[in-house]
């Protein structure tokens, strides 16, 4: 696996570019307090709605807070939410997909349940969950995870269905290997490459959905500086102070772009069949 990764990183420009941008962003998020002399929450009414300048790199918002400071602190939330969402939804989806794909009588009911969840627009489902249980980091993560689970489950189930017919699996069954061992030793490794690719796309979508939820007022509490919250606060004064929206918006777009490029690169190197299918 490590060799595959090294191979991917050195051979594929998409992985380098996407991964490089993300690495920079990760460092920015980690050292956020060192990159600014302001505090993300300090209100300074006499500096309100200042345009970008040497003192305020990206201007200030309607409460006089420094937008650059809030944007770099917002990067922490985005990266945290995306990695947590990706790991949880992949773990749960993997479990459901393995069981549904291998245990025949559970396949029908489980996949119908997944179809049902997929029929509910993800954003609306997330909005409903947050408005029912209140705005907190945990609720937002759960709200983004639930709509992602069926996608992972479907993907894993598809892999399981094709692998279970392979001679080496049949041989293991014939030798009387217990089902859990077959699942873990023979089937699980085949799901890793597609799941890494899928996980990257989930990260992109989680960053986006978190920002959308905050933007719509159904995300993290407004005092936490997330990109979506900064943009939401800039809505009322957009005509006077467009920088409040355009800068965090730009960060959001570049981050999602970087994750998507990384995902495309990983897909092309880790899963050549997929590349052929997409004609890319």
């Amino acid at each position: 696996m490590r060799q595959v990764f090294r191979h991917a990183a050195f051979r594929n420009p998409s992985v380098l570019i996407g991964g490089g941008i993300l690495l920079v962003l990760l460092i920015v998020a980690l050292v956020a307090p060192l990159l600014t002399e302001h505090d993300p929450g300090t209100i300074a009414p006499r500096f309100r709605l200042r345009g970008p300048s040497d003192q305020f790199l990206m201007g200030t918002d309607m409460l006089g807070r420094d937008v650059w400071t809030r944007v770099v602190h917002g990067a922490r939330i985005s990266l945290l939410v995306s990695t947590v969402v990706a790991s949880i939804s992949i773990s749960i989806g993997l479990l459901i997909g393995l069981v549904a794909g291998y245990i025949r009588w559970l396949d029908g009911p489980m996949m119908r349940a997944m179809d049902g969840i997929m029929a509910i627009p993800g954003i609306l489902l997330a909005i409903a969950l947050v408005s029912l249980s209140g705005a907190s980091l945990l609720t937002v993560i759960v709200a983004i995870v639930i709509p992602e689970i069926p996608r992972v489950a479907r993907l894993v189930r598809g892999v399981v269905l094709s692998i279970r017919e392979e001679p080496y699996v049949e041989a293991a069954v014939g030798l009387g290997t217990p089902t859990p061992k077959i699942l873990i030793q023979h089937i699980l490794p085949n799901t890793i490459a597609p799941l890494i690719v899928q996980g990257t796309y989930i990260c992109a979508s989680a960053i986006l959905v978190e920002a959308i939820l905050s933007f719509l007022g159904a995300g993290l509490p407004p005092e936490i500086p997330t990109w979506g919250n900064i943009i939401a606060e800039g809505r009322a004064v957009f005509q006077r102070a467009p920088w409040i929206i355009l800068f965090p918006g730009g960060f959001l777009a570049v981050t999602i772009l970087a994750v998507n490029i990384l995902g495309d690169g990983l897909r092309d190197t880790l899963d050549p069949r997929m590349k052929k299918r997409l004609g890319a």
Partner: protein
Amino acid sequence: MLRLVLSRLLAAIPVMGVVAIFVFLLLRLSPGDPAAILAGDTATPEIIAEIRADLGLDRPIPEQFVTWIGQLAQGDLGKSVLSKQPVTMMISQRVEPTMSLALTTLIFAIVVAVPMGILAAWKQGSWFDRGIMALSVAGFSIPVFVLGYIMVYVFSMKLDLFPAQGFASIRDGLPGFLERIALPTVTLSFIYIALFARITRTAMLEVLNEDYIRTAHAKGLKERVVLVKHALRNAAIPIVSVIGIGFALLIGGVVITETVFNIPGIGRLVVDAVLGRDYPIIQGVILVFSGVYVLINLAIDIAYVLLDPRIRY
């Protein structure tokens, strides 16, 4: 044909059932008292008790479910907490702007993206092809609200070409309608143009290697005829199915676009409901949109058979 429609309808029932159970349990299993949530933040204990009795929330869960499904089957989605109006009525009043935006977006995206995808496949590997592919990655990555504000900034604040906000009904005249819906449509279609162009290109590439395309070329048909009549018709299936997948994205996008451009549609209704903690509206919109999603997918399954007689169910 009738059998096909019936069997597809039957297959849609369990999906809708899961949606209904899920939405039902969402309120009952969420932490906190559902009656208090439905009553809103300002309710007194008496109002909460009244709502609890009204909705039967004090009775056992299975009994509640039967009552709830019964009301749902009659098209009763409950009443708004704030305005006390039936949710069905509030949604139906907001359908027009949302439908208008969804339809103009779909039409615009298809009209722009399908030719782009065809040309990219035809000139595979050219700068045009690469440009389209790069654009499509960008299209997936720019969040719709960020793009919306960029559009407002450029076309409405700097160039002063379009109004930044609002909606005008098509019944009050086409020019006014188009002027108001242009920016939201272009904003929302960006991601669809990316999606449709990409899938059209892929589907066309697969078909262009087929023997019958070589035959069509060999008998001296014009390039345009080969591309549209022979290739596109056979590439149509994946394109149509992606339009179905796109619909799920469209719903999320509509909610956001309506907020950016202040369009009084269903999306705005949901966002206002979130701010007012008006849960029955959120729940009603979820049920309606999920139903529409299932119906669209049903229509697409049927469209497959009409497009390609080889597909049998």
